[in-house]
Each structure stands twice: as C-alpha cells, then as structure tokens.
C-alpha cells in the first residue's frame, strides 16, 4: 500500500469511529491521569457498557494538560460537540453512561467544556475557559484527542505527511525549511536546529547518528513524558525526518527508565511504524533506510548533557568530556551525531506537515513558535501548557495558572531546573523567550515552571538545588564535585541557624569558581539557583544568618510548633496522631506541644488545619 492509500484508509477508519453512531469515550490515561485514578474510570466505563451491550467505545488517550482536573474524560456523541468532564469518579462515570450515553442529558453541571461546532447551553467552549484561552496548542494538538497506540489516528490527523514531504525533496531543502521556521532547540539552550544539522552534514564521515534526548532529568518538568505518552508518533516522525536530512542510518531514543508508560508507548509506536513502512529498509519506497533503538536511561541527570549521553549509550559511565570536538563532528562511536530534544523533534514534524509559515505565525523575532511548559508548584491550575514564545510570566501564572493556591502571595518562579534561576515578582512581566530569560538571569531550560508562594523558603530552595547537583555531579572535575559540596554545606548551615556573616561572600566566590572551572553545563550552571536567590532574595539570607529566623517558617531548626490557645477545642486529633507523643492534654481542654520532644513532622498541623487551625509554626529565636 502506498502512502496516499494509507492516508485514505486511515481517514476513513478515523471518521467512521469518531463520526459513527457509536459514542466514543476518551479517558485521559497518561501517567498523571493514571495516578489520579484514570484506570479505574476506564474499567468502570467498560464494565457499565458491557452491561448495556457495548453501546459506546472506550479509548485510553493521552493528556490534554489539565492535570489538576484529572481524571478527564471526553465523550463524543453523533451530532453533538465533544464534551469534557473533569474530576471523574467511578460514580460519575456510571452516571455519564446512564444520563448522557443512554439518555440525552449532557449534564452541564459536571462538564468542563465542549469542543466542536455546536454549543450546548451551560457548557463553555473548552478553548475559551480561562486556563485554555491564552494557550496555542500546536505541539500538543493531538494530545488527549487521538489514541496514542493507533498509528492510523495520527495519520488521519495529518501525521507522517511531513515525512512523506521531506522524503520527496533533497536534504538541503529540508534544512532550508527548518531554517526559515527559525526553530531553536527546545532542550533549553536554544541553538538553531538547522545549524546543528548542517554541521553534521558538513562533516566528512559517511556514518552518522541521530539521537533523540528523552531523558528529561529536570526535576519539575514533564512535558516530554506527556508528549511521548500522548502523541509518540509526532516525535518519531521528526526523528526520521532529521535522520533523512543528516543522512543517518541509525538512531537512538534515550529515555528515562522512570517513565515506564512513555517507554511502552514508544515501543508500541515503533513497531507500528515498521509495519507501515515508516522505519526500516526503503522507507516509503524512497530507498532511505533507517532504524531506531530505544536506550533506557539509568538515572543520571548528567546524561542529559550531550557527551555524557553518548558515553552512556556506549555502555560507559555517563561522564561528559571537553568540547570541541562537538558531537556533530565527533559523537557516538566517534561518528558525527546530532542530538535533539523530544519537543524539537515534534516541532520538526509540525513544520514539515504544515509549512514554516504556519510555525512562525507565533513567537517573537528571535524565538519562533510555541513552547510547552509544565506549570507546577503553588499555582491553582497545574498542568501541561503550550504558549507562543514571548508570552509573559504573569500571563502564564495568573491567567493560565489561575494565580496562587489558597489565596497565597506569589514569591518566585523557578525556571530552567537546576541550571536556571528563581525570579521574583518584579520580573513577572518578563517575556518567556530564550533571550529575555537569559537577560533576567534564568534560562529557558527544558520548560519547567515551578511557582512558589510565601510558604517556600528561598534559602531552602537554593539548598535543595545544590543537594540535587551534589548528588548528580559525575565527579569528574573538582570545582563541581567539591565546590558544590562546599556550597551545600554552607547553605545547610544557614538553614540550620549556623550561618556566619562571611558566608554570603564565600558563596559568591565559590559560585564564580564553579562557573569558570567546571567542564560541562551541569557544573557551569549549578550555582545559578544560588546566585539568583542571593540577587533577588538577599534579605531572606540575611534574616537566616543574622536573626536565625526563617521568614517562611519552613526551616525546621529555626521554628517551633505551638497550640493557639484561643482556637484549640481539645479535640485530641493532634494528640492521637503525634508520632512521638509530644502533644499532651485531655479531651475538650487546651492541648500543648512539648517543644523538646516535637520532631516538627507537621502531622498535627495537617490534621488541625481547615477544622480548627489551632496549631501554628513560630520562630524559635
């Protein structure tokens, strides 16, 4: 079967399914959905439908990004727009079958939004609700809408036309198109994608490799995982296009072992590609041969760095080496190698499918297109988002994120993971693009946006990142191995009330040394969280050092727990739950906490809050 026949067949099958008489129930079953109970919802639907005689079909799909509302279910019924239901419980699932599938009441009171031509009274249009409105879904266009385990779904919505187009033209022309799109690497540094490819093409060697970096070690980021779980073919299509362009016969996907579902869906997608002739010998009858192998990462953050990643694929310790030579001239097995991030690959498919003009419709002069982010932390609407580059942090946090949880106050946003920085409120109008963020002292990184409110201690956050770096440093060079250890020790002392006045200078001096003396990006950028927190939150450091106080009341050694006399009703909840017996008192009478015994685990405050709020954290000194 040739490609056009396959497209026709896929579209027919897809339309028959989604426009047919049998209603379709899409259950958001990415890792986030599953952790919120999507599997149980899926099983409940199937069981209910079986009882009724298969009156609808259930399909497990990926994530539309509204993770805070998981599990999310979409019901598609003939003649009606698709209706999204959020926070679906097994009880609600049964009700949906009875009331909407069997009956005709779409239950607006449970619906989040609808999508399609017709509107239903009481149900807003999905892409008009506040969390969706500022977003532009290009990379994530299929996430939550197609079956990630059915290649025909992807083909039916335009998938693989980009590859088909690329294979009809010369690699040079593909490069030209990518150049016109202005695509910059989505892994964080923002290097022009076409240029990286061109470097590889320009090298003399015949044997070349293409690696897709799906390691996503940044804590706080999960965009790659979501994309791989929801639309794996969009990434794979980009990989084959890139391989064709640079002339690679073999490619690797380096994916973290901590992402079992993403790995499963990738493996499945790869076998489907083979069946359909998108992979292997003579791809789409053009004579181009290419194969992909999956390599599971084994839990080392530094392997996100190109040369370390290559060492890891070669079966060695994942230690970086000096550059140049860059991997594009001396990479895997010493051969020219291009390493691209997951989202970069998906962008390549998008550009080749829809043309570069469509891609440059969004973004800024220097940063084209849209970018996905994981919006997490103390923000109301957490999840996976996609916005045009150039959108401001304020828009993302206030409009899409819905502001701070529990009516708290914004304190900082952490961007770019351990290599990035924490920006304060005065930077909220900063545009999110490669250059503006660098100017502000942070970096784009892979795209984790961790929002923090007044309950976060910025010294503790800096300590947290240093602890992470200390654990993940490969140990090859001294500034990174020992310098970060020194910084961590100083920061730990400060959070424990043992800070000294000279500590700040020492931290800055160490930071400069580590920046200048480290071999790879991990070491060079590791002081960034410390530098930005010192720059923007110096008073918090000062308070810790000079007054032995933690303004956020988070650092354990600097706080005590106590009962608020006026509020305690003697319900005994805290007393019964205290793991060390530090609470004393009798029923219906005032309780008290023994500060010597108290381990500050927070159990009492968790149980009391919301009900009496009679326990508080106070400064010890």
């Amino acid at each position, binding site marked *: 079967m040739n490609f056009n026949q396959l497209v026709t067949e896929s579209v027919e099958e897809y339309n028959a399914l989604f426009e047919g008489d049998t209603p379709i129930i899409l259950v958001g079953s990415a*890792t*986030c959905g*599953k*952790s*919120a109970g999507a599997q149980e919802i899926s099983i409940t639907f199937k069981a209910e439908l079986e009882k009724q005689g298969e009156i609808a079909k259930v399909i497990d799909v990926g994530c539309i990004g509204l*993770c*805070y509302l*998981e599990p999310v279910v979409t019901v598609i019924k003939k003649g009606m727009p698709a209706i999204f239901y959020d926070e679906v419980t097994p009880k609600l699932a049964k009700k949906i079958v009875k009331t909407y599938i069997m009956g005709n009441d779409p239950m607006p009171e449970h619906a989040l939004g609808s999508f399609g031509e017709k509107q239903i009274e009481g149900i807003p249009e999905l892409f008009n609700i506040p969390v969706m409105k500022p977003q532009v879904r290009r990379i994530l266009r299929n996430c939550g809408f197609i079956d990630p385990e059915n290649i025909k779904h992807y083909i039916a919505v335009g998938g693989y036309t980009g590859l088909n187009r690329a294979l009809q033209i010369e690699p040079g022309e593909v490069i030209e198109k990518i150049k016109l799109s202005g695509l910059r690497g989505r892994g964080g540094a923002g290097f022009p994608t076409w240029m990286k490819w061109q470097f590889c093409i320009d090298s003399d060697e015949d044997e070349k490799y293409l690696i897709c970096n799906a390691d*996503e*070690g940044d*804590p*706080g*980021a*999960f965009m790659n*995982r979501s994309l791989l779980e929801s639309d794996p073919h969009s990434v794979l299509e980009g990989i084959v296009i890139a391989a064709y362009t640079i002339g690679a016969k073999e490619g690797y996907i380096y994916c*973290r*072992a*901590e*992402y*079992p579902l993403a790995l499963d869906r990738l493996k499945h997608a790869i076998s489907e590609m083979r069946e359909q002739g998108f992979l292997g010998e003579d791809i789409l009858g053009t004579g181009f041969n290419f194969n992909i192998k999956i*390599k*599971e990462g*084994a*839990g*080392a*953050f530094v392997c996100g760095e190109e040369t370390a990643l290559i060492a*890891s*694929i*070669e*079966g*060695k*310790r*994942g*230690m970086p080496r000096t550059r140049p030579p860059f991997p594009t001239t001396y990479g895997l097995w010493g051969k020219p190698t291009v390493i691209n991030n997951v989202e970069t690959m998906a962008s390549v498919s998008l550009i080749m499918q829809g043309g570069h003009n469509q891609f440059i419709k969004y973004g800024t002069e220097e940063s084209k297109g849209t970018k996905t982010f*994981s*919006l*997490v*932390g*103390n923000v109301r609407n*957490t*999840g*996976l988002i996609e916005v045009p580059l150039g959108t401001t942090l304020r828009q993302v946090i206030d409009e899409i994120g819905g502001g701070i949880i529990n009516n708290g106050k914004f304190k900082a946003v*952490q961007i770019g*993971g351990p290599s990035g920085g924490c920006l304060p409120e005065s930077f909220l109008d900063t545009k999110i693009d490669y250059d503006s963020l660098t100017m502000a002292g942070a970096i784009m990184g892979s795209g*984790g946006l*961790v929002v*923090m409110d007044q309950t*976060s201690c910025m010294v503790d*956050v800096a300590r*947290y*990142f240093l602890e*992470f770096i200390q*654990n*993940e440093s490969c140990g090859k060079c001294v500034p990174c191995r020992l310098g970060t250890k020194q910084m961590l020790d100083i920061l730990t002392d400060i959070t424990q009330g043992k800070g000294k006045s000279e500590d700040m200078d020492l931290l800055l001096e160490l930071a400069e040394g580590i920046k200048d003396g480290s071999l790879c990006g991990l070491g060079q950028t590791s002081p960034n969280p410390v530098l930005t927190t010192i720059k923007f939150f110096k008073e918090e450091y000062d308070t810790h050092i000079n007054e032995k106080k933690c303004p956020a009341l988070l650092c354990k050694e600097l706080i005590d727990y106590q009962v608020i006399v006026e509020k305690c009703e003697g319900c005994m909840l805290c007393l019964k739950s205290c*793991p060390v017996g530090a609470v004393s008192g009798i029923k219906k009478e005032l309780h008290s906490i023994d500060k010597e015994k108290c381990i500050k*685990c*927070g*159990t009492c405050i*968790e*149980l009391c809050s919301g009900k009496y709020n009679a326990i508080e954290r106070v400064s010890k000194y």
Partner: protein
Amino acid sequence: MSKILNKILSKYSGDKSDLIPILQDIQSNLGYLSEEAIIAVSKFAGIPESEIYGVATFYTQFRFTPVGKKHVMVCKGTACHVKGAPQIIEGIERHLDIKEGEVTFDMEYSLESVGCLGCCALAPCAMVNEDVESNLTLKDVKKIFSRMKRESKNNDCN
C-alpha cells in the same frame, strides 16, 4: 539463579554497549544486581568486574541489595519539594520504621527517593512498584500503607 541469568544473557550479543541494558534486564528480573550476576556478566561480555561495578554504581537506578515486595519511590523533584516531599519521606520512614535506602525486616517494603517521576502537576507523589500515588498528604501515607497491608493479606489468602 544461574538459569535465569543465562536466559537473560542469551538475548544479547555481548557487545560493550549492551552492558547497561543487560544490567537493567537483570535488575528488572531479579530485583537487584547480585555478585553472582556481576561475575556472570563479566564472563559473558569480557568486561572486568571492576569496570561493571564502576558503571553500575554511577547510575542511581542500580541496586546491589534486594528490594522489598513493594518498592516505594518517593519523588524529590522541585514541585514535590515545594509541596512538602521532605515531610512525606520522613512520614514514610516513620511509618515503615526504616530509613531511605533500606528494606523492612520482613522484606515487605523498601524505600528510596528519586529525582523526578514526572508527575509534577499532582505533587507531591510517590511510586509503589508501577503505580503512582499523587497529591500525597501525611494522612494519605497512613491510608496507603494500611490499604497495601490489606491487599497483601487478601493475596496471601488467595
């Protein structure tokens, strides 16, 4: 044991780049990398044992002691940290009466922290074997473990 090891090794060509996949395969089948396994891999791939240990100890995924029937991995990612992961880890440590990296006496549970599980929107979270538990509170810790206890009891009866 050596039968399983032979079966695993027979899938590979012995190429040096197979080392990490082989170790991963062994660990997922046997739960950890035993001394016997390292010796077998060394003979099979012609790589000195010291070098295998060198590679295996570099990556956090590899373990040299068995894990419990239920392996608990608590996420220590940034979002989880901001939302109270340290308290959750301490809570689980108290509940199981073991420290991070240890196994309970009855080999039922083992506890470990991991860099990031990628479930940041529903932080804090943890993974018990293959299942992710999200939006954890200290109260949930108690609930989850008593639920697991019930489940394993039921399984034992079956």
